[in-house]
Each structure stands twice: as structure tokens, then as C-alpha cells.
């Protein structure tokens, strides 16, 4: 089975802090990581390879330093990686990103399954996976928490608001996975050595034979008009006294606000 996993390099948002004076994001020293959901997608792909054989390829679109995310994927044990990088891709929204990734996937030959994370933790859009499926004209199943493959059909359990839904999707298709699907493995020593040695192949816009009018900022229907920090929450209040007094105070406050 030939599997492609799309991963994104993101800032580790646990560490993103706001400079209170300038109200801007402090990026200094903020580590970049593989989007956590994408690690689950890699893990799911590796488990499918262990069961069915075949190959796991990982691609990412991003600036040159996104190569680090690909090395981390190699260290986890994937077979091949490619960096999709070109000035022409800068400023891509999910429309242009999913177009570019789908063009890259077309170049990889016959693919049975494409795996994405549920969403990226920087943009939180969850739009790129279904977007790729639409560009490629193949089905999608989002929010997968369990995947089984038999005779070229994926049986997938999806995690929805209140229920889980089990569906069947013939391959090829796109799956996006939630965190609960598995526990991503740690990099192996052998993998880390391989990651160090591997030369990362870069695919440019020309190689992808992409339509320039679909790329980057130009190809993006959405524009960011402004970015700002959310207004700070009005100062909180610590309730005082013994347990009983604090509970009474709380009930009083909630009633005052007419919330209960």
C-alpha cells in the first residue's frame, strides 16, 4: 500500500506568549514541532504499513526550515519525504495549500491513501484535508479514530460531537485523524541516524507543473486583513473565607450576573 502523509511544521503553541507591551506574539526561542495531529497521522500510516506492507511517504509545504519536520518524520520510520517549497507558495491560504499539495501528490505516482491531521494547531482550520480530496476528486473521511483496511476498502470510525460513526470508503481516499487514534512512537536511533544523512528533496512550483494563478497569496481567495490580540479578560476575583463562605460568595456572584 502506498500512503502519503501531509504534515505541517507549526510553532509549539504551548510556548507562544504575548508581549504585553506590544501585544504581539513572542516567537523568539519558540520551538517548531510537527503539528501534533500529524504525528498521529504518521503513526497511523506506519501501523498500516506494518500490517499491509508498502511505503509511507511524507510531504510538507513550507519554508526551507520545514525540512526539519521531515527529518523528524524519517526518525519515526517513514520511507520517503519531500519538501514542497518555493517563494511562489508564500501566503497560501487553505485553498492554495490544498491545491499545491494535491499537485505534489499527483507527482508521486499511484497512491492508495492520503492521511492528514484533523487540523493544524496554528491555523486550526481543518480545511486542508478535505480540500486535497476535492482537488484530487477522491472521497474523504474526517475525524478518524480507528482505521481498518481490507480489499482496498477502508473501514473508518469517525469521532463526532456526540456519537461515533463507522463508515466505509473505497480507496484511494483522504483520511484526517484525531488525537485519540493512537500514541505516536518515539524516534528510533536508527531513524535518527537516517534522518541526519538523508538529503531532503525539494519540489518547486515548476516541478509540480502547477497553475501559477492558483498559488500563494495570488491563488488565495482569503486575505488576512488584520491580526490582533484578544482583549484581556476582565480581572478575576479570588473568593475569600472558609469553604462555606467562598461557596456562598460564589452562588451570590453567579446570581448577581443572572447566570444561574
Amino acid at each position, binding site marked *: 500500500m502506498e500512503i502519503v502523509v501531509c504534515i505541517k511544521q507549526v510553532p509549539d503553541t504551548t510556548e507562544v506568549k504575548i508581549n504585553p507591551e506590544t501585544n504581539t506574539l513572542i516567537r523568539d526561542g519558540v520551538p517548531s514541532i510537527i503539528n501534533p495531529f500529524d504525528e498521529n497521522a504518521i503513526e497511523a500510516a506506519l501501523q498500516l504499513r506494518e500490517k499491509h506492507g508498502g511505503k509511507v511517504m511524507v510531504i510538507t509545504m513550507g519554508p526551507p526550515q520545514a525540512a526539519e519536520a521531515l527529518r523528524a518524520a524519517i526518525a519515526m520510520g517513514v520511507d520517503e519525504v519531500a519538501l514542497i517549497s518555493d517563494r511562489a507558495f508564500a501566503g497560501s491560504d487553505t485553498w492554495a495549500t490544498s491545491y499545491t499539495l494535491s499537485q505534489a501528490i499527483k507527482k508521486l505516482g499511484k497512491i492508495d491513501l492520503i492521511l492528514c491531521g484533523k487540523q493544524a494547531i496554528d491555523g486550526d482550520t481543518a480545511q486542508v484535508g478535505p480540500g486535497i480530496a476535492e482537488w484530487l476528486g477522491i472521497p474523504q473521511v474526517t475525524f478518524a479514530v480507528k482505521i481498518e483496511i481490507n480489499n482496498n476498502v477502508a473501514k473508518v470510525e469517525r469521532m463526532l460531537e456526540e456519537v461515533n460513526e463507522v463508515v466505509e470508503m473505497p480507496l484511494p481516499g483522504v483520511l484526517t485523524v484525531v488525537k485519540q487514534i493512537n500514541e505516536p512512537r518515539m524516534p528510533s536511533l536508527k531513524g535518527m541516524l537516517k534522518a541526519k544523512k538523508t538529503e531532503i528533496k525539494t519540489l518547486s512550483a515548476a516541478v509540480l507543473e502547477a497553475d501559477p494563478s492558483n498559488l500563494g497569496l495570488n491563488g488565495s481567495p482569503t486575505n*488576512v486583513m488584520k491580526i490582533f490580540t484578544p482583549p484581556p479578560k476582565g480581572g478575576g476575583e479570588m473568593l475569600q473565607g472558609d469553604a462555606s463562605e467562598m461557596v456562598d460568595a460564589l452562588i451570590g456572584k453567579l446570581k448577581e450576573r443572572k447566570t444561574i
Partner: protein
Amino acid sequence: MSIKVFAEKCTGCTLCVKACPFAAITMQERPESKRKLAVIDLDQCTLCSACIPSCKFNAIEIKAEKESSKDISHFKGIWVFAEQREGEIQPVAFELLSEGKKLAADLNCELAAVLCGDESIDKEINKLFEYGADKVYLLQHKELKDYRSLPYTRAIAEAIQKHKPEIFLLGATTMGRDLAARLAIRVGAGLTADCTGLSIDPVKKILQQTRPAFGGNIMATIISPNHRPQMATVRPKVFKKTKDLRPKTKDLNIIKFSPVINPEDLIVKILEVIKDESAKVNLQEAEIIVSGGRGLGDPKNFKLVEDLAKVLGGAVGASRATVDAGWISAHHQVGQTGKTVAPKIYIACGIAGKIQHLVGMQSSDTIVAINKDPDAPIFKVATYGIVGDVLEILPLLTRKLQESRR
């Protein structure tokens, strides 16, 4: 596209350096002047435009090389996707109609709901008019009874191409996000995810869509100036649902539409729906959420959380640590890997308040934190904090609330 700093306008003030989320701007000496010059590292820059408004001197410019020449002037009206599950329209659809009504007034246009389903969905149509729809597009087909990506995309894309709405809003639910993402590509529209604010630019008459990004650490306002419809998914519970009090005409404006669904749209099949009996309440729709963390000490103490939730008529949430430990099912998890919620009251019991949890609940109206560690980060976002033992506070709170109700 390109980004450019006009050297003659740049005063070296460094405001743009601070505004750049990607550390792509540095200040460099220039031989001809005492003032430094902002230089953008094109490998780091994502053209996110954060620097543009930060510059007081209009020294930075982003230019698209070509403007879209598509004629978009004939797209008119606002559509709301009337999400239905098991034949029942979901509250988020009414919230979007209520908000859509205001936007429609600003644009002086019509507000329509798009309802997909089989014959049995007829019984729901009236509710859409009650919440302000001027018109309902009824997309009826036996294959549209339950949501699936491909047939829904097919049917709605056809309706959009035929009737050309200017704006299309969907709930940012699992269904809305799955559908909108595919549909936007098919109809060539821009799509903004998980919005928490919508408004109309009074001059350009376009939709301004505001949403949290970077886990709620920053907000972004996004526009789709040259593509139609302007599409957005909107987080449930952000807008209040309000009934439309205008008198109703006798003849309800229902446009029936029988979409053509191809066999290749039906290749994904629903085999089974697994109900989680413990998660009967949909967290994202709950007005009050009482959430438990590892500070409860023992899975059986979740009972205390459930008791309080019951008295308040609320739902039960949980931190990831408790879900991972198997204390409660994953449907209850709040946070980055769980659900994003914004109820009227969120009561965090024995939850430390790590950022991954906070991003999922910090926009709740009122946050109550109960934790025995006065330095727990949850207190930074709490409206009311109680430093104390959950095992003592929770039963007391439940009992006193019960008493005060009597």
C-alpha cells in the same frame, strides 16, 4: 505577489519587527542614514500582512500581481446552512439565521436557509422562518437524509452555482467543517474557519470574518474580496438565537430543488452509529459546563462533578489527563485536542489550566476555578477563583445550590 519596504518611508521605528509573528523582519544599518531600515527575510515571511497595519508610515506594501477579473457583482443574498441531525435542525442554524438577519440588513439583501434532507424533513421548515429566514432552499433527495460529504457537496454546489449567494455561513461543527472545506474548493470560494465574529465593511460591503488562531493567542480578521460566495464556518454558541418577530406572510417562500446525485457520490457508506450513552449532552451546545481534572484524585469522584452539573442543568467536561487515564470518555474532553466550548458558565474542578486546556474554554462568559494550588494557571483566566479542595467544595456547592432552589 510581493512584499516591499519603501526605504524612503521607513523611519527605523521597529514597530513592524514586533508585529511580525514569524520573526521575518530585522533592522539593518544603512550607510546613507542614521535611521535603520526594516528588511524582510523572504524565506521566513508568509505574507500574513500583520506588519502592514503596524507601520504608521505606510512603508510596507503587499501587492498581488494580478487582480481577479471575475465578475462577482451578480452574487446576492446571504445563505445559512440548516444543519440537521437525525431529522432535527441544530441550534447553530438558528444562531446563524439570527446573526444573518443583521448582516442582511446591513447589505439590504435577502436571508435564506439551505435545508438538505429526505421527505421527512418537511416538518422542520417552519422553524427556519421563525428564526428569520426570508426564503428556504429545500434540497430534497432520499440520499440526503443523513449527512455524507459527497452527496451534500454535489447538491449544495449545484444550488450555489444556480442561485449565486454572496455569503454562505455554516456551523463550525464536525459536519459543517467537513462540508464547507470541500464545497469551497468546488465552487472556488474563500473559506474562513471557526469564526467568532462577523460584520459587514460599511464601505466595501464585504464580510469581515474574525477568528482565533494560534490556539486563541491571537485573533485575525479575514476577508475574501474577490471570490463569491464568501464562506465561513462559525463556532456554535457565539451568536444568540432570537426569534424573528416580524409578522409572517401566509405564503412561505420555499424554493424546492431536486438535486441530481450521481452514483459516484455514494461510494462512502455509513455502516453504523455508535452512541456514547454517557455523553448525551452535546458539550458545544451546553449553557453550563462543569469540568473535572486530575485534581479529583480518583475516577469515582467524577460523580461530584456530575452531581453539580445535574443541579445546574449543565454538561460534564474533562481535561485530557482524565480522559487519557480512562476516567471518562473522550467525548467529554475540552481543549486543543478535544472540544472548543464557550458556555455561559465553565466550572473547572481540579484542573491545572495548561494552555492546551485553556484554548478550549477561555472564551466562556464566566469561568469558575476550584483548585487547591493558588498558583495554578487556571486562576489567570478565572472570573471567580476558589482556592480549596474540590472534594470539600463540590459537595458543598451542590448542596447549597439545591437548598437555594427550594
